[in-house]
């Protein structure tokens, strides 16, 4: 039902059931928000979005107030602007005064608001809260002193992930965001996904930063610094350097990494191809031998931790394959080390991931042997950007380069791992070949593409009909698991990505990305798949060589030793 409302003296159309904010956004009338998140029920907590409503003595929050026919709103009267400014000042009066030293300097929503509302003197003084930092987690650092209690992290963890490891604790001005019993994040049910960081407006949440560690080893004479980067990285950097969002700058990335000081530049996408070889073989093995079904992917470490905590009854369903990062790391420290005649203990293996959970994954017990880690240091995209800027590398003026062998060639099947549904599609392409002996005529499996949180398809391979599902956002995984617990039996293979949309929207990516950017990144990956001719993992020549010279066959002893892992039930406060 169409209504008419007046905003700042002009008339606008609105639909019954909409909030004032929806109408404002649609018509380009900017109103600041702090606690608001699209697609979430408005919380009304921050009061920044207040507007004047004729007939109401108080200012109302536009994020929650429903439109009604004939309502008159003013979004920029002096009264409204003064109120918003005071709210920002109140936040600042209880916020550390150390912007210059803060991880979110120049990229902080509070800072932006302070600038927008022209806060140029400290009008309001007061006692600042004294909360301690939480450094316990391998992936995420919490600094409650910088928290403005907008609640976005709590809601994402609860509603999108279904994990709910953090919540509002205490009351009033003693409120803080904390874990169960106020313990460190590492003993809670946190799966390290980092989506909380992605929605945090300030520096209250950040990743465990290891750029200085990496800086140090880059200049160590006795160490060989080797780097790998995830499939999604090359399409996730563009807008940081003024290029079109989603633009693939793979070659430039290689060049930048070498200029920084990495001796060898490898591509995790190679590892993705390797994962496909092992995982596809494992899937067929399970189907043929009637082993535990359905099989779940295991390349997403936050999902793996989630399963270990919330669904230990499904641990046998998880593929025993390590993730591409870890497989690549294992091959680096064994196959590559042998070939290049470098002592494994002298290699420092660094990976660049769109993910914070990978920092935790790299430290897992099975991810190495004899004191040698598969991967030594994991850096997020954000940390990579820091290093690029630190080294003064001008991404517009360097020549693209190629990756190094023997872990440099990659198929486009591996590349699409970065988007939700990519692992599934890549695996099906290889499984089809392994089962039928033929290649798919059409490699595009559209049913598993797209940003929806839950996709399903039925794939016919000879006289076998395989039911597959692709979920992103752990809450969707939780729902699917519940269905299976309740008896659902028609699925064989399930891809789970913790981050909605897949790794392109991972917890380690640039902060402040919009849905449009994520879509652009996804489209870019599928364009690469369209363009390139090497569309299947099993045809990757370096992969073929690896098996011929080193591994033998998928799932054999060598693979088992280096490329597969175990899971364990985790006792945490759920």
């Amino acid at each position, binding site marked *: 039902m169409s209504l008419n409302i007046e905003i700042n003296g002009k008339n606008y159309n609105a639909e019954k059931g909409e909030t004032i904010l929806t109408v404002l956004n649609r018509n380009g009338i900017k109103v600041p928000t702090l606690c608001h998140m699209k697609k979430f029920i408005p919380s009304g907590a921050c009061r920044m979005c207040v507007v004047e409503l004729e007939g109401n003595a108080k200012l109302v929050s536009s994020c929650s107030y429903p439109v009604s026919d004939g309502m008159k709103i003013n979004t920029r009267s002096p009264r409204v602007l003064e109120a918003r400014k005071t709210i920002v000042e109140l936040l600042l009066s209880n916020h550390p005064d150390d912007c210059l030293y803060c991880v979110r300097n120049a990229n902080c929503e509070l800072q932006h608001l302070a600038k927008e509302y022209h806060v140029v003197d400290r009008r309001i003084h007061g006692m600042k809260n004294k909360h301690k930092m939480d450094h316990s987690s391998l992936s995420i650092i919490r600094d409650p002193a910088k928290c403005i209690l907008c609640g976005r992290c709590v809601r994402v963890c609860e509603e999108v992930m279904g994990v*709910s*490891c953090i*919540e509002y604790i*205490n*009351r009033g001005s003693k409120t803080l965001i904390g874990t*169960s*019993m106020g313990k460190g994040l590492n003993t809670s*049910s946190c799966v390290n996904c980092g989506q909380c960081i992605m929605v945090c407006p300030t520096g209250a949440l950040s990743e465990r930063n290891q750029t200085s560690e990496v800086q140090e080893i880059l200049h160590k004479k006795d160490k060989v610094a080797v780097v790998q980067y995830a499939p999604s990285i090359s399409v996730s950097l563009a807008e940081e350097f003024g290029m079109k969002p989603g633009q693939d700058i793979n070659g430039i990335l290689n060049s930048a990494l070498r200029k920084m000081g990495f001796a060898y530049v490898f591509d995790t996408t190679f590892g993705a191809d390797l994962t496909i070889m092992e995982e596809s073989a494992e899937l067929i093995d399970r189907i043929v031998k009637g082993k535990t079904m359905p099989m779940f992917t295991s390349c997403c470490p936050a999902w793996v931790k989630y399963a270990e905590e919330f669904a230990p009854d499904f641990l046998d369903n998880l593929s025993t394959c390590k993730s591409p990062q870890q497989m690549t790391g294992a091959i680096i420290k064994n196959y590559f080390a042998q070939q290049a005649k470098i002592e494994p203990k002298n290699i420092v293996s660094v990976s660049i991931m769109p993910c914070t959970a990978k920092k935790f994954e790299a430290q897992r017990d099975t991810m190495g042997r004899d004191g040698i880690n598969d991967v030594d240091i994991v850096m997020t995209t954000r940390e990579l950007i820091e290093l690029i800027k630190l080294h003064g590398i001008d991404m517009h003026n360097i020549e693209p380069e190629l990756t190094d062998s023997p872990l440099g060639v990659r198929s486009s099947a591996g590349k699409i791992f970065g988007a939700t549904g990519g692992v599934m599609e890549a695996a099906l392409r290889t499984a089809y070949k392994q089962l039928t002996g033929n290649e798919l005529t059409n490699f595009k499996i559209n049913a598993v593409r797209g940003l929806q949180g839950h996709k399903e398809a039925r794939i016919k391979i000879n006289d076998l009909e395989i039911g597959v599902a692709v979920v992103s956002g752990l809450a969707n995984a939780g729902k699917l698991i519940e269905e299976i617990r309740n008896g659902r039996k028609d699925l064989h293979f399930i891809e789970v990505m913790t981050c909605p949309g897949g790794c392109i929207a991972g917890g380690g990516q640039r902060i402040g990305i919009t849905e449009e950017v994520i879509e652009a990144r996804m489209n870019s990956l599928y364009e690469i798949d369209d363009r390139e001719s090497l569309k299947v993992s099993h045809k990757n020549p370096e992969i073929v060589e690896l098996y011929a010279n080193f591994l033998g066959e998928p799932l054999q002893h060598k693979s088992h030793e280096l490329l597969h892992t175990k899971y364990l039930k985790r006792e945490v*406060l*759920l």
Partner: protein
Amino acid sequence: MKTKIDEILTNYDNGGRDTLIPLLQEIQEKEGFLSEEAIVKTGKKLKIPTSKIYGVATFYNQFRFEPVGKYHIMVCRGTACHVLGSATVLQELESQLKIKAGQTTRDGLFSIEVVACIGACGLAPVLNINGEFHANVTAESIKNIIDTYRAKEQ
């Protein structure tokens, strides 16, 4: 081995979210406070994340996470009590028992808590000790009141 908490939980088998607060209240009534065991088992029973349970429990004044003294003294900080001198009463209590509000004496006998208005304003200042109300309390009458309770220990 079934604990007291396990026994209480058997009555909440199909409990929804709205049974959370009554359940915590029952546990606190029987145990005196909420332990980690209470929070974890409640979470498992009601299928609610423990962070949410902890969040609810820390929101409300009623819930304690440490045991209180045998004689728990609640000092009312309502308006009438304030106007009629509750601050002095509290000061005297703290000085006599040598603890501050929120603490328990070493021998576990007494603990002090400052609470919101008890609703007996006509008789301000008011103390509530283990459910027994003491009206028109002054700094002078504190000593007698404490002695009466100590005498019970003899």
